[in-house]
């Protein structure tokens, strides 16, 4: 069971306490969190494989109704929506489920007992979320480019802002959900919401193609705001500050509620 010979040299455990360097703590924590996401089969399915399948499927199989396309080609119509889906999948659904199970397995009770400050705990998670989002955008963007996606370059900075606002908005909602309910319920609710927002939240169907009441709602959902904003920025090079505002408001409200409801143990 061990190669240890059973005796400890005196002085082995002589106290030498001290806090580790903040940079090293943050780096180690962010690395662990990123690896956990990338190693997790269901997370990869949710954050990468399903968006990839939809991107390729909707582009190649000519599934987009002609009256929705305006003057865009299928890949141009699909890519912004799939990027919105990817952000929602990782920042909201994946985040909520991971948080629910991390709480269940007592990781925060464990980490609360170390010298790891709370802000490093949160910061490491945010850095990990940004790493995962970067990978998603690079892979999905790369595949879309290979399929013929040609965004308006002037809209790319706006798209970056939108993706960041999306991470803020969806991330706060993910923490709100994952931090307040039992892990198994989080799993069910997060997956259900993912599906509902995908179909009726303005992602695979543009808000204007939804029934009248629902289309207004969808424009103010984080999913609809992010998808429409990314479309406007990447296809027309337009500013989409109204979408950013919707996402930030969701983020502020979600975070405000989450600070009250989140239980880390």
């Amino acid at each position, binding site marked *: 069971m*061990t190669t240890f010979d059973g005796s400890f040299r005196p002085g082995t455990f002589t106290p030498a306490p001290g806090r580790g360097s903040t940079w090293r703590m943050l780096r180690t924590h962010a690395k662990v969190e990123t690896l956990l996401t990338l190693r997790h089969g269901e997370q990869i399915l949710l954050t990468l494989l399903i968006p990839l399948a939809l991107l390729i499927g909707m582009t190649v199989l000519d599934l987009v109704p002609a009256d929705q396309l305006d003057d865009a080609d299928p890949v141009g119509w699909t890519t912004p929506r799939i990027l919105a889906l990817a952000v929602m999948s990782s920042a909201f659904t994946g985040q909520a489920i991971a948080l629910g199970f991390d709480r269940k397995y007592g990781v925060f009770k*464990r980490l609360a007992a170390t010298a790891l400050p709370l802000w490093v705990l949160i910061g490491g998670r945010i850095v990990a979320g940004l790493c995962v989002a970067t990978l998603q955008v690079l892979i999905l963007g790369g595949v879309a480019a290979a399929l013929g996606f040609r965004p308006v370059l002037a809209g790319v900075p706006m798209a970056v802002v939108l993706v960041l606002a999306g991470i803020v908005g969806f991330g706060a909602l993910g923490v709100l959900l994952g931090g307040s309910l039992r892990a198994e319920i989080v799993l069910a609710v997060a997956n259900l919401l993912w599906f509902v927002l995908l179909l009726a939240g303005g992602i695979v169907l543009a808000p204007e193609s939804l029934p009248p009441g629902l289309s207004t709602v969808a424009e103010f959902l984080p999913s609809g705001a992010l998808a429409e904003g990314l479309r406007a920025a990447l296809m027309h090079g337009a500013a989409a500050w109204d979408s950013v505002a919707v996402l930030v408001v969701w983020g502020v409200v979600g975070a405000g509620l989450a600070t009250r409801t989140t239980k880390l143990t």
Partner: protein
Amino acid sequence: MSEPALQISGLVKRFGSAVAVDGVGLELPRGTLLALLGPNGAGKTTTVEIAEGLQRPDAGTVRVLGLDPHRDRARLRPRIGVMPQGGGAYPGVRTAEMLQLVASCAADPLDVRWLLDVLGLAKAARTPFKRLSGGQQQRLSLACAIVGRPELVFLDEPTAGMDPQARRLVWDLLAALRADGVSILLTTHLMEEAETLADQVVIIDRGRVVAQGSPAELTASDGDAEQLTFRARPGLDVGLLIEALPEGYTVTETAPGSYRVTGKIDPQVVSTVTAWCAQHGVLAEQLHVGSKDLEDVFLELTGRELRA
């Protein structure tokens, strides 16, 4: 360095109308090991979590390494090691990654690979936390508590769920920590653990300290009330043995096959008991004269009924 590692007095903690801790006081001198014993729900974990700064007391004073565990928590955390009850890890994190993460919080941590090897976790270094056995999870949690070379460690039921081999290993480890000057507070349900390791035992029940002292002090016979215990086949007629003994002795079968003779035990009494057994063709095994063991003391003080 003369101030105690931990000093608690008059500690009170209420949860709603229930009083979890009701005036607990104890002191842990530096470089010693204190075992906190008590039935489930006695207030052990609450006391420990207050000392760790995870909960706030309603009354009383707590000084940890001379500091306030709540107000000075940020300064204290690098100096203490904690093994929480039911504290875990990310479900998917590998054993070595988790220990590495905790080690990164310390300025001069122990070598992670060495510590995993010592605790018999080297082969499980790449195993995800959720696939570890309960005993392996406990050993990882213990490793996390000591990897930062703390001055003071809090261990909440450190050997719960461990097999006897792992338990011996942990006892050796704790003895080595203590010998190197680390102060240790542990809670346990194992009397043997407390008797083997502790400089000082504190028994609490219903939130109050009901006894404290070294294991030897706690089990010392008080005056003439000494006892003789032995094991034999169950169902002996203890009435006959009482008749054979001088006036004033009592004999009870405390559990099937376990007998206890209470009264002043002198050589004559031992001889009478063994002679009586011989007459009845009974072999008395595990004959033990003198003091009670810690479990007797514990059960006397806290009663025999089951707790929550």
